[in-house]
Every structure is written in C-alpha cells, then in structure tokens.
C-alpha cells in the first residue's frame, strides 16, 4: 500500500531528462538493426511492430529516465507509392515532456517509431 508524503518534484533532474537526440539514437539503432533487409510481410508486421515497440520501450526505460511514463508508437507500412502523412499532437508540459521519433525506410516499407515521454509528477 502506497503511503508516504507527497513529493513535489515537478522537474526531472537534468541527467534524467528525456533527451530526444539520445532516444532517437536508440530508436535508430534498434530499428536499423531489426529492419535492415526485412521485406514487408503483412502477416509478420503486427508482431514485428509489437516487438519493436517493446524493445524500444525497454531500451529507453533502461536509459535512466526518472519518473517518465513512456508511450511507444511503432507504425510499419508498406511502400507502394502511396502518400503517407503522420503527425502527433500532445497536451503536455513542454518543459519536461518530449518525444523522439525516427523514420526508417527501405525499398518496400517504412517504419515510424515515436517515443513520447511524459514526466510523472
């Protein structure tokens, strides 16, 4: 049972702040590692998405973000010449919360992975 006084820590320590560049690098690393040379397969992609999101989440979690709630969104789509437009909008505290995003593309698919980090006060 959660007892104890309320903490009023409303800003993360600088080292533990959500740094988009760092997280982006994580994403890039993982996505590149997992998707290079992969062809789009509609049966496998949902599972792939899930596992990608999980591994990104784990990675970012281990990155020492303090009190951050993470939302990882991974979108994989086939590239067949269609136009795709993705955008996000957040209601959050811009001082602490941030997001990182990376796009991976090869000949037949694209993968957008976005990590939203929201500071849990």
């Amino acid at each position, binding site marked *: *049972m*959660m007892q104890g006084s*309320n903490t*009023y820590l*409303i800003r993360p320590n600088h080292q533990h702040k959500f740094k988009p560049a760092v997280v982006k690098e994580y994403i890039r690393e993982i996505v590149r590692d997992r998707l290079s040379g992969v062809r789009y397969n509609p049966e496998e992609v949902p599972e792939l998405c899930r596992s990608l999101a999980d591994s990104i989440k784990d990675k970012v979690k281990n990155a020492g973000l303090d009190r951050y709630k993470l939302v990882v969104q991974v*979108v994989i789509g086939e*590239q*067949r*010449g*269609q*136009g*795709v*437009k*993705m*955008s*996000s*909008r*957040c*209601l*959050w*505290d*811009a*001082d602490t919360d941030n*997001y990182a*995003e990376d*796009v991976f593309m090869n*000949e*037949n698919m*694209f993968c*957008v992975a*976005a990590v939203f980090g929201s500071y849990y*006060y």
Partner: protein
Amino acid sequence: MHSDKKLTKEDTWRPADLRRYIREEERGDFRKRDESERKHHRGDSIEKRTRDQEKEYRREKDNIRERTDENVKDRYSERRKEGSRDRREERDKDREKRRERDRQGDVNKYVDDYRENKDRRRDREERHDRERDKERSRDKEKERVRDREKYYEEEKGRRREERDKERSRDKEKERVREKEKYYDEEKDRRREERDKERSRDKEKERAREREKYYDEEKDRRREERDKERSRDKERERAREREKYYEEEKDRRREERDKEKSRDKEKERVREKEKYYEEEKDRRREERDKERRREERDREHRNERERRRNEPSGEEGRDRIEKYERNQRDRHQERERHKDEYEVKRSEKERRERPADRTHSELNEERDYREERRKDKDERERRHKDRRNYDDKQKPDSDSREHQDLRKSSEEVLDHRSDRERTERDKYKDRRYQEERDPERNDRDKAKTKKSASETSHSHKTTIETEITSDQDAAEPEYEDDFEKLDYEEDFEEMDESANDSEEERQLSEEKEELSDKRREEIKAIQRAMDEENERMGTAQSRQSPIREEEDRPKWSRGSEKNQSKTSQRGKFINFVAAKQREINKKVATQQKKRSTELLRLIDLDFSVTSSLLDLPPVNEYDMYIRNFGTANTKQAYVQCNEDNADRDIQTEEIELCEKWTQHPPEHYGACGDPNLTQDPQNRTVNEINFDSKRLTAFLLSASQVMVVLLEEDQAERESLRKLQSQTDTLSFSDGSLQLNTKLPFLYGRSISLIHFSQVQRHTMMSVHKPTTKPSAVRLDSCTVICIWNIWEPSKPQKILVYESEVLCCCFSPGKAILVFAGTSVGSVVLWDLREQACNHYRITIGEDEWTLRQPSFSTDAVMAGSGHLSSVTSVEVVPSAIAGGLRPEVPLLASEEESTGLSFQLASLDESGVLNFWVVVELPKANESGSQTDLGLRPGGKVKLLHSSSLLTTERVSQREATKTGPLQTLQLKFLPSDSNHFFIGTNMGIVSHGTSHGLRALPKFYRFHEGGVRPVDVNSISFSPFRQHLFLVGCGDGSIRLHVVSYEQPLTEWNNLTAGEPVVSVQWAQTRSTVFCVLDAASNFHIWDLLKNETEPVVTERINADRVTAMATFGDSGQQNTYSGVALAHESGKIEIQYFTKNLTVPSPAEDEKLECLMKEAF
C-alpha cells in the same frame, strides 16, 4: 411483447424493481438462486436479459426512491439500523431455534432468506404500529366489521358463499398461504424430485399463464364481486344484509379509490392488520387444529389437482362458464375449509371482541405482540415475506389453477403426477412472490404510479388474454400483471404477513408429523441437493464474478441489504473489499490533493503538431522506376529485329600522325614531326637535315668564296681594261673597281659616307642620303645603307634602310655583323646583319629581289630619357684592349667571338656634347613575337643596346669660349685605339678636346692650332694612324690639316692653305704605309701626302671635276702577303669607285718609321 407496450416511466422502473427484488431473493436464497440459475442455464434468455436491465433499473429506482419518498427513506434508515444491530444475534438465535424446531437441517439455509425479508417485514410492522394508532379513531369501522362478523356467525350456515366472497377471501388466502407454507417446506424436502421433475421454462410459462388468468380473474372478480354481491343480494341476502354489503361495497370502492392516496390505503391495511394480528394470537392456540387442517389442505389440494386435470380439455368454454366454475371451485374450497373457518372465526371473534372493547388493551396487546413478533419476524421475515406473497397468490392461484389447468398448459402436465404438479405450482407461486415482492415496496413508496399502472391495466388485460395462448410470453408483462394483482390485494398483504409468524411455527410442527418414510426420502433428497448445490455453487461462482464486481460498487453504498447479501456469499471478501475501497479512497484523495496543488505549478500546453512522417505520393513513373529500375527485379529486354543494328568498319584504319610545315623553310626541314626522335626513320631524316645544315653552311661559305673568285676574276679583267683606259685620269691608281650602284632604290642618291670595317677590310658600307627625286621605290625619305663586299661589286650584300638621315655609322668590332648608326633625330640604331632575310621586307624590282632591312634595335623615343636630344654626330665602338690588340685574320666563317656572343661598348656623341655609352647585348634567343620590355627591339631581333652611362663633354670645353663663338658643337669622336678610356672630340672651334670616360683629367686637354687661339673652324675629320697610334690627323673646315701627337697640345705639323681654302672633307691614313695619307677637300680635290718624300706638299693632287667626289675612304690590308691598298671614292652621281694605289703608295718601307720619328723629334 414487452417492447410493444408504451412504457411510462413507472412502467419501466417498476418491472425493474421487480427484477431487482427477484435478484435479491436469488442472492439471498442460495437455493432459489441455484434453481433460477439452473433455469438460466437451460436456456431461458429472457431472464438473463431482464437481469441485465435490472441493474440499470435498480440504480434508477434508487435515485427515484430517494427523491420521491423522503419519508420512506427515513423509515428505511431507521429500520436498517435496527436490522443491522439485531441481525447477528438474531441469526444465531434463529439458527438454534430453527434447529430445534425444524428437524430438517436444511432449514438453516432459510435463515438468510428470513434475514433479508426481515427488513421488509419490520417495515410493515412499524407501519402497522402507526396504523394501529390511527385505528383507534376508526372504531366505527371495526365495529362494523365486528357487526359483520356477528352477523356472519348468525347466518353462517346460510351464507357461506357470501362470507367466502367478502371476508373469507382473505381467510381463504390465508388458508392457501398456510398450505403453501407447507408446500414451501415440502418443496425443500422434495427438491430432488423437483430438480428431476421439471423443465422450468414450461413451468414459468404455465405460471405466467396462470397469472394472466389471475389478472383476468381479478378483473373478473372485481366485477364478479359486484355481480356476486348483487346476485347474492338478490338470491339470498336479506335487505339488511344487502344494505350492509352495499355499504361495505361502497366502502371498498371508496377504499380502492383512496388507495391512490397512500394514507387511506394504510388505514385500510392497518385495519386489516389489526384484525389479523388478533387473529394471529388466536391462531397460536389453534396450531393443533391448523396442523390438522394443513393435512387436510394437502389432501384437498391433491384433490383439486386431480380435478384440474379433469377439466383440462374444456379450454374453449366461455368466460362466464369459467367464472361460474371459478366460483364453484372457490365455493368448494371454502366449504372444505368451512369447518376450520368456523372454528377460527368463532375464536377470532371471541378474541376480537374483547380486543375491540378497549383500545388501550389492544395497544398493550399489540406492543407485546410486537415485541414477540420482532424476534420471530426478524428470524423469519424473509420466509414470511415470501410466504406472504404465496398467501396472497394462493387464493388467486388456487382459483386460477383450475382455469389454467384447463388451458393448454395442462397438456404438458398431464403425464406428470399430481404431486409433482402441486409442487410445481408451489414453485411457480414462489417465483411470483419473488417477483411481486419488490413491486410491492415500490408501490408503497410511489403511490402516484399506481394510477398510471391502473390506467394501463385495462389494456394490458386485453392483451394478456391473447398472450395466454402464447406460452413464450415475456416476463415483464406478467410483472405488470402482478402489479395489478398486488394493487387489488394490497390491503390483504399486511394482514397476511402478520399471520405468517404463526404459520411458520405451524409449519415446523407439521414437519414433525412427517412420516418416517418421508424423512428418509428427505435425507436422500438433501444429499442430492447438497451435491447439486455444490455443483451449482461452483458454476455460479465461475459465472458470477463479473456481475459481482459490477454490482459491488453499488452495494458499497453501505445499504444493509447489500451487505447482508454479500456477507451471505462470503463475509470476509466483503470486508476486504470494503477496506480496500477505503484505502483506495484515501489514496485517491491524497492524489487528488496533490494533483490540485501541482496543477498550479504546471503549465500544460498543446505541443505544436509535429509531423512524424510525410511521405509524398510517388507518381507512376517513379514507382515503376523504383520497382523495376533497381533492386529485387531484373529487367530482361527482348530485342526485335528492326533495331538489330550492327556497326561494321569497312575500310582499313587510317594511320594518323602529326606533322608540321613552315613556309619559308628557314629551319632544318620543310616539315617536322613532334615524334621524330622516337622514329628511326625520322632520325635518318634528322641526320639528313643535320647534314644538310652543315652542307648549307658549307655551301654558303663556299659559294661566297666562289662568287668572290669569279668576281675577282671578272673585275680583274675589267679593271685591266679600265685601267688601261683610265690610267690617264688617275695617276695614283693602279686599277679601279666600280661598285654596281645602279640600283633602282639607289638612283639619285648621293653618298654621304663610306666606311670600311676595320676587321673585315673588304667589307664596306655606303650611306646613301635620302633623295628628293621621285623614284620607283618608295624609300625617298629613307636613308639606305648598302653593305658591300669589295670583291663582289655587282651588288651590295645587305641593304639597310632607316627613316631619317643617318649622320654617322660604324661596324661592330671584329666581324662585321652589326652596323651602328647615329641619326639626325638623335637616335642610335643598329642592324644585325645575321638576321634572316625572310624576317624583313622584300621588294622585287625587275628580276631581282631585294631585302630591305629595318634596324634591329632603335633608341628612337624608347630611351628618350637617356638618349640623345640632338643629332648624333658620331658613333664609335669603344675598342677593348684585346680587340684593339688583336688583328685577327679575316675569317670567312663565324669566329669564336660570334659564337660566344658580343660584349662591347658603344659610344655616341651628339651635337650638344652629350656622350652616351651603350652596352651592346646579344640575347641568347630571338623572340619572334617581340619583347615587351625592350620596345626598341625589333621582333626576332637578338641584339640590343643598354644605356650604360652618359657624359657631358662640352661644358669644360666651351665655358670659356662659348661667349665668343656661340654654342660649341661637337662633331667628331674618336677613341684612342690603345686605351679606350681616352676619347677625342672634334669641335666646331677647330680644337680637339681630350677626355676620359671615367672623368679623369687627361693632358693635354685640347689639341689646337699651332698659332693658338680659338677659331670657329669645324673639325671635319680626325684619323688615327694605324701604325703609330698616338698620331692622329685633324682636318679642318678652313682647309688646314694638323698632325698631332696625343701627348702634346701643339700639332706636330700643320699644313695650311694647301687646299686653297677649301674645307677638308676627309683625312685618312693609308692602311699599308705609315707616312701616306689622303685628303679630300670640298672642291673634289684628292691629295695624297707622302711624308717620306715631301713633308710640306702632297705628292699627288688629283682634281676630279667630271663627277665630284663626295666621300672617300681608304682601305687596305697591311699584314697580308698580297697586300692591297686603295681608296673608295663616292661620286656625286652615286657611283662608287674603288681605286687601287699604285705600288709606290702601298709598299711600306722601313724609312717611314724613321721619318716619323724624325718628325716628332724635330717638332718637340
């Protein structure tokens, strides 16, 4: 069906309430629930549906209830408290008591049910209490009842029917209820049977049907009541009684109307309750009787059932018949119970009367009863409540049963045993109770709804008649029907409930009477039941959790009912949940507090919409290229025939190489090839070229030699002939040679100068002055200089042209390859005679082609700062010591000097006395495009002049004399051949100044006339002796000639007036004899002096009048074995004659030196 009805708000929530209560019943009564669950399992979807709705309705209902009826709420809260307080103790107590009372162990399970109903029961009781108080004011009515009862007693025998109808309707119900109580107990006993027995759906349907009939019957009964009453009146009743009935009828009608208003209803109920409570007491005493009666009832019921089966085929009969039959049935029933009733009534009346006598007594009694009942009631409340409904229903159901069974449902029942059927009926009844139970409460609370339900009642009944045939009729309708039913019987309920407590006891006693056989049976049933319950319990628990969880929050409001329910299911779970809820609430509030505090500090804002991915659509072509142009696919092309192009080379390959040619072919070959050196074939060509080069060089020199030889030969022959002819003219001449000056460009030009090279003594140049006469060649304003080889007199070697007048000129030291000239415009120019003829302008005159050479270098304007500002009067090569010392033989070919490059100084003197020194520089390579730094250098020229130094020679000379004689002019420049630092300048003052190039003082400063003094006489000529280099001759404009020694100011000798006053033009030493010199004066007299022969006069004087001689130059080579010496004479006509001296003038003798020595000794 349900949806067909237009449901008012009341309609919708009332059935909901019903359902809720059903559920409560179900939850409370484990067994019942099991049964109902089983029903659900068997596929009754209706119940499930309704149960789902139930929750919503329940919520709604709670709200409504709270809002609409504050009183009830208050009451409830009170009751709840009481109930909760008492419950535990009561429960335990109840259990013990029950165990004692009920031999069957399963009765304990009812405890829960009782507890549930306790609340309700207490409600009623409290209400009763209140009502009782009110009752006192209604003695009249009671008395009326009492009167009625008295009357009944009197007319018992006669008017049994009427009694039944009016008053005993209640009693009958009670009876039936009692029976049903028994049935309930029996139910438990026979659960096994029941379980096996039935398809519950059918039962339900049947029950519904029956209920519809109830409803119908109720309506009918209402009518019947009136009818019957009237009928009874007509038939049997006396007027009085009729009156009474009518009164009562009216009263009832009034009451019915009043029912809409709660108070009235309550009053009525209270009345009845009062009555029944009294009766209860009575009944306690009559328990034994009742036991018997119960048994009898059972038998009756069986009979009835049997009877029911019989009339099952009579469905199609008219309603009237049904009514009649119904009445008949009822009648029979009543008759059956008549004995009991009578006993009861007598007792009742006995009791009632004293009770009525004093209200205070009654109250006391009631209080007492209340207390007692509380215990009992609380124990049995639920049971009783249920039973109340059973009781309520019983009369209806009994009466209806006959009708129902006649109908279609009978068919199913037919094959079953009577007993089973009765049990089934009981179950049905119980179910109805359950359904009705909540309804009643609701009705109590919301009176206004009743009116609505009443209005809807009429059309419902009509619908229901139709429905009766439909076995699958929906439950909600029946529920509505129940409302009606309840509504009608509202007054009766309370009474019945009051009676129940006693009945309960009776039931337990009845159980004791069960036969041993029965007991055994029951035990078996129990075992089976327990098994079944366990099974169902697990199934239920599996099934229910979701619902439970949903429900829990609602229960958690703390209502006793719910708590009790949950506690029945699992006490600690409930507490844990409650505790958990508390904790959650606490945490939630904490968090909420924190969040509110934090929210002030935090600004939430919308982030700018960030684009995660923007992939533009690819057009078709790009798509194609992407898919088929690159990876993953291979593009295989098939070539059709039409494009099957084949490229073939049909000719031999052409060999290409680079060649060049040049015109004119000045270089080694006419054509060249950059790759020659690599090519052996070309190398031979190169060798050939090399050979040809040498050949050319050889040929050049050889041809020159040959030409010279040929010309010499020719000249000799000519000269011999000429000499023969001319001997008379020139005494000194041994022979003469005429240079071919009859050239078109030389036509009409006079020769101002003739000059021989000091090294190449056969090379001569003649300066032809510009002419004013028109000529074929446009060189009018130009000075033409011809370079001659005197051995080749036919034509000049080179032709040099210059735009202005040339005043002086000289050859380069050594080989005559350079020509220097000073011009009247103050420039010094030079010609490089080695330059290729192709680089110069050529003109073709007649058959001959002539190359006119422009100067290679000119100081014109280019060196204005350092050049001469006035006419250059004299140009002399500064002799170097070596050059001076050397007297090389005349080389035909290029000397070393030439190859090593030129390096000597040139001095130029202008009129104003400025002496400039130039360094002659030969560039290692000619630049065809011209030099950008040396603008005076002709393109392709290799030799140029660099200004070295400048001296002003006149100042020293003229300072003194300038005032007398005007400006001093310097006219002649000569260098001391042995020492180039000393120069001698002839002036227009008749003196020759002596200077050194380094500014050193040289003595004597001047060489003057013998007499001294300065005379304005030009020094026209200065000539150093080639043999004695310190001797020089000066020829002056006044005709005087002086012979000077360098070291003395005074002349050695001076000859005046020898020329008859004619200015001396030129004085020149002969090249082969040291004592011979030639003088030419302006009068064209040519004098030859031979000092050895004559010191005072010339030995030869020739007057040339025919063609005046304008210029003269001596030539000769002393060192050669074939010594020759002569003089070149330039005539006015432009003719150049070369006269060879006679032998006496050319052959030197040793006496000459001695003579000269003598002369010098004589002079100094």
